[in-house]
């Protein structure tokens, strides 16, 4: 397979020069330290990985190099020269480009418009020189081995193509080093392989790639160098190049895992067989344009059903339909009071500027009302009770929710939904329960979800993380191209799931 040969070739090169050098970098947000005194170098002409659990500081560190953040202390050097201005424009000038997890493409514009956005070649009177733009864009796409109709609207492209377009944007800007933040979170196993093929091609042509990830199998398969961060600090560096050139210890999956988590991998609890009762949450041929065509599924009381599928297949439409935010154009959903946790907690789950108390009681203030006035002590008491039972730290419910760690923020959103369950909601739907959440918080969240399910709630969990679904769900349904194609035992392999997610039959 090309991938393997290419990566061996890439690994054979010597990694002498460092393309990005971090020195004593420190960055905090509202008092919480995200990156704590990190000094590390990323090699040139190589595919490097920056690893760590969610919240370890990986994205923050690389965003300093990409001009998106200014470190509180320390220095970042690109190709040996220190970065003085931390702006995207300066970073582009120095050859650093970052492809973020949530794409920054503009759906209404065409592919060519997105590629050249911000750096359009201009003809003498200030008009855009489209022929020149097209030529340069084509060059970038060719280098990537990517064929796309430059005039197609970006919102019509599928996720894999959008991602490649983002990379093409970086190449168009002559990026020397391209940083990708969690690129495979939204890809099927097959799309992941072809992405890495493309990335290795770029490396063989002289560029450097840095991938921020927490997926260990990809590191071992494709990486030349890996650095591991944990809680903002550099923990270990691994080198996968061939023996004569290796300067650091090579890593195995187990070693990477224990470096990332600080202990010998999380022991998976044997799943206690749950007895499911009658159906509670029933969806029948739900259709929500543009992306959800036919969703039919029954979830019984006392069971956790996982819904696997990568973003863009109708998940958002499905969530909004169940939650009552969007009316389906056809089909039925019962019941109507479902406790919801949406996928994007920053915009759909929390009001970031508000306090923990405000967020815990969001939409539920009516419970603490006497006449038409709010009983403040009662509201405070309720919020504190919820916070304590969900182990949310810190205990001060008046602090701003934006200051909490990702794990605790997610606890707030989930706690609110579980509270709804306590007060009578019979079904619980959670999207991406552990996205951006550290290991301990994730375990705590799942414990709470399982406990709630055991009291007779029908739980549906949407996630792109197959391992997570396998560990906790009684059965796993697949959402592919707007349809729920079936439910399966959690014992299927990654490849089998991958095929199903792409729409192929079993």
């Amino acid at each position: 397979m090309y991938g393997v040969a290419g990566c061996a070739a890439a690994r054979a090169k010597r990694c002498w020069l460092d393309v990005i050098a971090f020195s004593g970098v420190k960055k905090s947000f509202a008092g919480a330290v995200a990156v704590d005194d990190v000094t590390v170098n990323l090699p040139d002409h190589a595919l490097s990985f920056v690893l760590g659990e969610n919240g370890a500081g990986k994205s923050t560190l690389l965003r300093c190099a990409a001009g998106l953040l200014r470190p509180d202390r320390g220095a970042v050097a690109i190709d040996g020269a220190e970065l003085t201005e931390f702006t995207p424009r300066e970073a582009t000038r120095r050859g650093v480009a970052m492809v973020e997890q949530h794409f920054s493409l503009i759906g209404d514009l065409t592919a060519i418009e997105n590629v050249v956005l911000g750096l359009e070649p201009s003809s003498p009177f200030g008009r855009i020189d489209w022929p020149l733009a097209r030529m340069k864009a084509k060059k970038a796409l060719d280098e990537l081995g990517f064929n796309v109709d430059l005039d197609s609207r970006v919102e019509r492209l599928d996720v894999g193509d959008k991602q490649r377009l983002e990379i093409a944007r970086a190449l168009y800007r002559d990026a020397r080093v391209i940083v990708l933040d969690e690129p495979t979170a939204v890809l099927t196993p097959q799309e992941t392989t072809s992405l890495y093929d493309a990335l290795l091609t770029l490396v063989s042509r002289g560029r450097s790639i840095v991938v921020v990830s927490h997926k260990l199998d990809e590191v071992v398969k494709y990486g030349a160098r890996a650095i591991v961060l944990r809680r903002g600090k550099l923990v270990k560096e691994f080198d996968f190049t061939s023996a004569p050139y290796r300067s650091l210890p090579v890593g195995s999956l187990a070693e990477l895992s224990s470096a990332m988590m600080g202990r010998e991998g999380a022991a998976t609890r044997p799943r206690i067989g749950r007895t499911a009762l009658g159906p509670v949450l029933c969806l029948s041929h739900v259709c929500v344009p543009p992306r959800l065509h036919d969703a039919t599924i029954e979830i019984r009381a006392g069971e956790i059903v996982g819904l696997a599928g990568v973003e863009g297949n109708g998940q958002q439409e499905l969530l909004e339909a169940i939650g009552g935010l969007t009316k389906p154009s056809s089909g039925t959903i019962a019941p109507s009071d479902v406790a919801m946790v949406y996928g994007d907690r920053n915009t759909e789950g929390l009001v970031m500027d508000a306090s923990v108390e405000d967020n815990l009681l969001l939409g539920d203030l009516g419970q603490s009302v006497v006449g038409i006035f709010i009983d403040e002590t009662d509201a405070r008491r309720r919020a504190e009770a919820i916070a304590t039972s969900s182990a949310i730290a810190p205990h001060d419910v008046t602090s701003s929710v934006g200051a909490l760690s990702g794990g605790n923020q997610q606890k707030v959103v989930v706690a609110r939904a579980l509270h709804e369950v306590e007060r009578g909601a019979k079904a619980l739907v959670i999207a991406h329960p552990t996205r951006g959440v550290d290991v301990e918080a994730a375990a705590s969240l799942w414990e709470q979800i399982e406990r709630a399910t055991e009291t007779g709630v029908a739980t549906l969990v949407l996630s792109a993380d197959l391992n997570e679904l396998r560990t906790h769900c009684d059965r796993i349904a697949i959402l592919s191209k707007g349809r729920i194609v079936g439910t399966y035992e959690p014992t299927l392999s990654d490849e089998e799931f991958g095929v199903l997610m792409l729409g192929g039959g079993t």
Partner: protein
Amino acid sequence: MKAITASLVGLCAAWLAFNLAALAYGESPLQLLVILYRGTWGTWYGVGQVLYKATPLMLAGAAVAFALRAGLFNVGVEGQAALAGLGSAAMASWLMSVAQNRFHKLHFVAQFVPVQWLLILATTLTIGCGWALIPALLKARFGAHEVVSTIVLNRIADAIIGFSLASGLALRGTVRTDDVGVHLPRLSAIGLSAFRGSAVSVALFVAAAIVLLAAFVRRRTVLGRELPLIASGLRACEAAGIPIKRRIVQAMLVSGAIAAFVPLGAVFGFKGYYELGLGAGVGFAGIAVAILGAGHPMGLVVAALVLATLEQGGLSLNGRIPMEVMEVLRAIIIIVVAWASGALKRALGVAVPA
């Protein structure tokens, strides 16, 4: 704390501008300051005038501030206040004529003062809320931006007022309504004789009470607590089941209700009638008060006093520097406070896009 810093920066900028203006007109800033003081806080009459001018300002500020908390810009305070002023004056003078007309069937009831005040109150609130309801519904139903709709409605209100006065609401040959009959007593009349000659009336206390009431509603009702959440996290509130459209309409109604009381001091406390052009510019002054007051009831009152001092002081200084300079200072305050609030956010570490 952050909000107050921005306000202080605004005041410093105003102080700087004042000095520059003084020097530009060949005057000594300190001398002007003394004259300003003597015309405002230096005499009881001056204090009274400042308080009189602060009365509509604090109400306009409270009206704007309440809607602003929900992210809504009620620029229609001007129209809401003017219509409510005309309407309440018309209702009051009609009641007066009924009370004096022995042959009218409501003659007896209309003489009862509490009944008069009740009807005046009802008219005021109905008109204020009603005029604010229009942009509220336009926003909730069609997403129409309230800045555009309220400004247009201000102009429509002007036209309605002009038309009504010309069609008979005004005394023949004038542009004012008939006497309102009931009055809010001047402060000089209720024992505070130091304020003799000044226009300030008990409307000042009514205004302060309304400002406190608005603050109470903000803190202790579901509406008040949910508005800032809607402003900063619309989608999350929607997802959590908060009725966004209903809250928007409610916020505008409350704002309109507060705005309706703006002309109270002038119509019922000083002039005794409504006159065309009364309170012109109070809407924009209210925005300045709301921004300067940084959302706190005490801040609103202080901001109203500051701007009223400038307004009254402008009169005393008129011989030396034109009183329009005070309006310029007011504009500078708005601009600088707005800039300072944004600048503070940037300085706290969020990256600035290139």
